[in-house]
């Protein structure tokens, strides 16, 4: 079912269209909510709230936007609303401390070393995934979410910009800095 047919079904209140929407989009939307919210329960609640909001406001969806982009925006808003109600936030790194540093002549202050192929063999696959996930969670939210949408969900720069209501250039800058900081966080485990 394409977007136009799905939206027409949703607008007509067709239960099958809502089920299709939920089955198609719940996974990426829950993964996105998890990037904002620490607890799985909160992330699931944010997704529920977002889906109810979609159900109620499908009439206001403008087909100039992609359905997927609109859904992602609703989840971002639902997650941010939940996040604001939380007193305790996750601990985040100062990203500037994890970016490469350079000498006046442009050389790296600390020369980089390749990662050992045996590091990946040494770590069990689940262990490696947990390490990467924990490292991503340490990135500041504005960087973590961009890295998530671009490198994990593989959305385009323009779509990510529209979801987060920032410029494509801001997406590019945040993505590059997020990758560099994540690289630095993984470095000590992968040499």
């Amino acid at each position, binding site marked *: 079912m394409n977007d136009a047919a799905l939206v027409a079904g949703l607008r007509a*209140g067709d*239960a099958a269209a*809502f*089920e299709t929407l*939920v*089955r198609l989009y*719940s*996974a990426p939307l*829950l*993964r996105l909510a998890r990037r904002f919210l620490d607890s799985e329960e909160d992330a*699931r609640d944010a*997704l*529920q709230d977002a*889906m*109810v909001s979609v*159900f*109620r406001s499908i009439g206001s969806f403008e087909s100039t936007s992609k359905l997927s982009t609109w859904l992602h925006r609703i989840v971002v808003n639902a997650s941010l609303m939940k996040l604001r109600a939380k007193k305790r936030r996750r601990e985040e790194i100062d990203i500037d401390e994890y970016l*490469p540093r*350079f000498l006046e*002549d*442009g*050389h*790296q202050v600390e*020369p*980089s*070393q*390749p*990662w050992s192929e045996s590091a990946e063999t040494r770590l069990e696959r689940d262990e*490696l*995934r947990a390490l*990467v*996930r924990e490292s*991503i969670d340490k990135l500041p939210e504005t960087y973590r979410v961009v*890295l998530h949408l671009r*490198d*994990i*969900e*593989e959305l385009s720069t323009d779509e990510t910009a529209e979801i987060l209501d920032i410029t494509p250039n801001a997406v*590019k800058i945040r*993505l*590059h800095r997020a*990758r*560099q900081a*994540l*690289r630095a966080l*993984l*470095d000590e485990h*992968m040499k």
Partner: protein
Amino acid sequence: MSTCEDVISFLDDYVAETLPPEPRASFDRHLAACPSCVAYLGTYRETIRLARLTIEDIPAEVITAILTTLARNTTRT
């Protein structure tokens, strides 16, 4: 010739192959002579690959719960 700072600052464009030919050629010349930047490039690419590995599916119960909530909302309206 490009410096390490030039190369690393634009590594995202280099990896995405969106650099114009001239700076790309200059970066390639730098990489041919700089093992540290080669290592940085390799680990930057690995970082992107490893991030992608964290993608996971969601439990079926999440979908069931949403459908139940939506059905309740439909009944109410």
